[in-house]
């Protein structure tokens, strides 16, 4: 690249060229790398499209009222569906949200506003961050040790396992959105003579609400798709649930069980159930985005 020698060239005779030189080495390397990057981006999005196509083609063809409402078929049985699994998933996610949202929100209030720099706040923030990288199956192992050994497999145990997974997500997302409430607004509230709790209830929570709801929705979406923690907490059931303290079906466990079966009917149902599960997760995701955009 040292073809421009400023010391010896008589400037008038050989003017310095500022034109593009497309075949120079740096231009070629650039082109190659740019092509590679485009390739990576396109190749990286293929799996998503492949998954979507399979879901629509395989799952969509089997998705009907029967699939959505009937009970899972046994062995060589034809037909059937996963109505009980849909209900089970919804119930367990609801239990998880009912436990983790209030706890997580209150903890976030403490971390973001009441005492952000205290030892307790620092420790729980660190623990929450560590918990987000926690293998989800360990939430199942923990719930097994605490609840299942004593009370048996149940929807409640499944819900608790999912709540353990949701809690750190809710805490961190809620803390983040509360911190984004401008300090001048909280100053104004303190200046009016609000107690700390009044500042939180009257100003911080209402202002940070869209962000908090987004975080909750994303946590719910994640929990709905989880399966590992349900494996040995809720187990599975071939029947509709009649109470919360019995083994309960869920979409994700149904997909896991059916995927390994040697029967076409079950495999088709696994695809249909996957489609329903993905749609469920997507609905929560889209809701989260919509709420997040509705900021003032």
């Amino acid at each position, binding site marked *: 690249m040292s073809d421009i020698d400023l010391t010896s060239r008589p400037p008038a005779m050989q003017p310095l060229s500022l034109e593009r030189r497309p075949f120079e080495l740096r231009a070629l390397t650039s082109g190659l790398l740019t092509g590679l990057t485009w390739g990576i981006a396109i190749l990286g999005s293929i799996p998503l499209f492949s998954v979507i196509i399979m879901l629509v083609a395989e799952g969509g063809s089997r998705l009907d009222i029967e699939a959505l409402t009937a009970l899972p078929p046994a062995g060589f049985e034809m037909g059937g569906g996963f109505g009980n699994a849909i209900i089970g998933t919804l119930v367990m996610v609801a239990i998880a949200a009912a436990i983790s949202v209030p706890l997580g929100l209150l903890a976030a209030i403490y971390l973001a506003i009441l005492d952000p720099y205290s030892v307790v706040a620092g420790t729980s923030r660190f623990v929450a961050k560590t918990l987000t990288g926690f293998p989800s199956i360990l939430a199942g192992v923990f719930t097994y040790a605490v609840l299942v050994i004593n009370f048996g497999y149940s929807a409640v145990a499944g819900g608790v396992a999912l709540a353990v997974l949701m809690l750190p997500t809710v805490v961190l997302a809620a803390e983040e959105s509360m911190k984004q409430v401008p300090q001048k607004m909280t100053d104004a509230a303190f200046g009016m*003579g609000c107690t700390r709790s009044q500042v939180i209830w009257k100003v911080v929570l209402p202002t940070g609400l869209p962000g908090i709801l987004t975080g909750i929705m994303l946590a719910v979406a994640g929990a709905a798709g989880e399966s590992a923690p349900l494996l040995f907490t809720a187990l599975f059931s071939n029947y509709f649930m009649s109470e919360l303290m019995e083994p309960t079906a869920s979409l994700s466990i149904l997909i896991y069980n059916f995927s390994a079966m040697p029967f076409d009917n079950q495999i088709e149902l696994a695809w249909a159930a996957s489609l329903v599960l993905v749609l469920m997760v997507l609905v929560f995701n889209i809701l989260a985005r919509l709420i997040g955009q509705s900021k003032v």
Partner: protein
Amino acid sequence: MSATAEAMAQSILPTAAAFSPVGPTVIDCQLEKVFYGDFLAVRNSNVPIEKGKITGFIGPSGCGKSTVLRSLNRMNDLIPIFRFEGHVKYHGQDVYGKNVDPVVVRRYIGMVFQQPNPFSMSIFDNVAFGLRLNRYKGNLEERVQKALERAALWKEVKDKLQKSGLSLSGGQQQRLCIARAIATEPDVLLMDEPCSALDPIATRQVEQLMLELKERYTVALVTHNMQQATRVADTTAFFGVDISQGGRTGYLVEMGETSRIFEDPQEELTKQYVSGEFS
């Protein structure tokens, strides 16, 4: 340093001559030292705030005038490393007394901030905020209207009271914040450079408003703008920065009637400042 040497060092520090206002004093600030952590931010400033008057705080940036103002209603308590030594007597009672709750202090001594800071709620709810906070039992609409009228904002917003306070222009937002502060009729209003984020027209409107507010309230005003002080303040306190001790410590240099401070300053520093030699 021995005790006597320290006392001597203290005695040679320049301090302002005592100023006593003619009328009754609402807040008598006897500030000895204000620290942020180990940093001595302001020292030895006795600032009496006279009832029914506007007291202006002027001085170069970093002189601690905002710190002094925010010490009056204990807003600085929100900063963990802040420490106040001295007394702030409000109707004779020490705001920094042992049993005093800063929350109560702020209910009586309202504040308007440098940046307009309406809450992200409707215009009506912004103004009604303090009324609801104090569980006002009377006619909410009437009070809100009165406060907005007094803040010279009613005509502009009376048809859109349910719109977000954040949808207003900067000048309107600041008047909304003033309306919010005066809706509960606090005894004293602290204004911390309320016009610094506003354009000249909005500034005029807010200044006009201050002159009207003086009829009912006692106002303490921090301003970076000397013309603004001459236009609205009855009494002016000039703060300077003392770098003689190696730090940057603010202190009260001189205080008196605004016309005297600007036309006949007694201190050399004040003279230089009001004649525009530094800012």
